[in-house]
């Protein structure tokens, strides 16, 4: 069933049409990869859906409810969560505390005064479980700001995951990560979201990663949807190959 739908979603930055009349439908349970060359509008699309930016036109529906005017917090509450391309963490916090903060927030305890945050066994226990799922449990007491790049990216996703999303947007989860680590990271992420049956939309540039994990691929170009279909269909699509690879030979 359709979880998310956008109609004519549009965003301009001055002259440039970053997102230009985009209609997409994301079905529940899918793992979708969002591909396209730089400037195609992928991150802007995610920004619009997560309410990081306001659209100039168009509407967004979640479970058939019009959420176009909703604030970021309202969207998070129904389960629309995102990670960030540049790992966005609480750098002075430990890895555990980063995840715990998300748990506190999700449980509505972020402004609680009467108890000690560090002694909340329930929250910390859950945070530890999340870390285990992501393979970060050995780093639980490390300071997030000092982690190596790949682990920061993984932690960024773990924090988003701790919010128990229904629809998770990953903004280039493996960018900047060495080839060897890319697979480990994506394996972890894919395993976690599949186990949790979380609908996932991942912006990704690495075609190997894209074809290995996706149920469906959406290709964007200059703010518009270029192609949308199964990996095989995209593989054979000449336009996609032209725009993404610069050659007419298919992928």
């Amino acid at each position: 069933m359709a979880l998310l739908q956008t109609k004519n979603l549009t965003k301009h930055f001055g002259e440039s049409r970053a997102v230009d009349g985009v209609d997409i439908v994301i079905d529940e349970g899918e793992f979708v990869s969002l591909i396209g060359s730089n400037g195609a509008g992928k991150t802007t699309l995610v920004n619009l859906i997560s309410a990081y930016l306001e659209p100039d036109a168009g509407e967004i529906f979640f479970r058939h409810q019009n959420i176009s005017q909703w604030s970021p917090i309202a969207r998070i509450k129904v389960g629309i969560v995102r990670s960030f391309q540049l790992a966005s963490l609480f750098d002075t916090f430990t890895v555990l505390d980063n995840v715990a903060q998300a748990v506190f927030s999700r449980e509505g305890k972020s402004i609680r005064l009467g108890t000690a945050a560090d002694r909340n066994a329930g929250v910390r226990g859950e945070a530890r479980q999340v870390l285990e799922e992501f393979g970060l449990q050995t780093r639980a007491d490390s300071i997030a700001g000092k982690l190596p790049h790949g682990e920061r990216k993984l932690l960024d996703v773990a924090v988003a995951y701790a919010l128990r999303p229904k629809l998770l947007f990953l903004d280039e989860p493996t960018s900047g990560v060495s080839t060897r680590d890319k697979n480990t990271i994506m394996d972890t992420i894919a395993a976690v979201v599949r186990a949790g049956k979380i609908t996932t939309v991942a912006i990704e540039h690495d075609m190997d990663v894209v074809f290995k994990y996706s149920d469906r691929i959406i290709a964007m170009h200059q703010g518009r949807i270029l192609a949308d279909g199964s990996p095989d269909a995209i593989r054979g699509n000449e336009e996609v190959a032209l725009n993404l690879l610069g050659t007419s030979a298919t992928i």
Partner: protein
Amino acid sequence: MKGDAITSRGGAISLRLAVAAILGCALLAIPQLVSPYQTLLLTYGLVMAIAALGFNLLLGYTGLLSFGHSAFFGTGAYTAALMAKYLGIHSMETFILAGLATAFLMSALFGVVCVRHTRIFFAILVMALSQVLWTLAYKFYGITNGTDGLNVPFPTLLGGSLTFRGAGAYQRFIVAYYYYVAVLFLLSAAVMWMITQSPFGKTLQSIRDNQTRAEFIGIRVRLCRWMAFLFSGTFTGLAGVLWLPLNRHVTPDVLYWPFSGEIVFLTVLGGFQSFSGPIVGALAFSYLKTYAVAWTEYWQFLLGAVLIFLVMALPTGIVGTLELLAARLKWPSFKPRI
């Protein structure tokens, strides 16, 4: 592993409690050991420590630098002074309750305007708004006596049971008031500790570290900042009320923005990256300023030079530097960190 963590935390906790208890006892024993003048200085220090604790909730924990906290300090002080003058009230408890209320309201008002803004603008805005209060105190001579200020007699303590009149009143007051302030200081520190260790305290820090991410994990950033502002201003307002009986005279100087600068200075001196830093800074500053003023007419120059030195060489202040030294010498670190 979970068990290990709890044990080591437990160990650290009982060590901290022990240290706090020792310091608490020392605090309470002071007047028996030192001269009335030293006791008075220490009382000033404790009062400023309360102000600094409040101030640092915004700076150290929430990442908001305010050059306008004199507004809250002055609100507390003037509330008490005006009540004394126009309502003939002399009960310290009444002063405190009223001062807390007015400081709370003032913080709420300031907060609504200021917390929508990012760091630099926030600093400037709070400063500019605090000047509104200064100009009101300065210009409405009929009510506040302008720069001549208001005089206030010794208040009564403990519901009127302790009064200070007649011969030897001053000496008796110094001792009694010291204990009064010391107890309130310990209470304030306990409350602030509770705030900073709570999930709310953690949330403030998450906002400080990464406002965007905080918002995108569902935290109401503006509301939290406003709440921090409320606590911060109210604490500083309490300090203003407690300060008044020590000075027994209040002028608009206590609302003028360079006084906010003093609060900033003493917090940075002690170290704004830890809980105890502001306390240490306030106490150190109380002595530093007194001796600087006695030593040279140009003590402001000295303070400026010290501040620059601190920021460039010892940005973590006294407490932070001591912790670094302790770590180098491999001593156990017991000073409560943020």
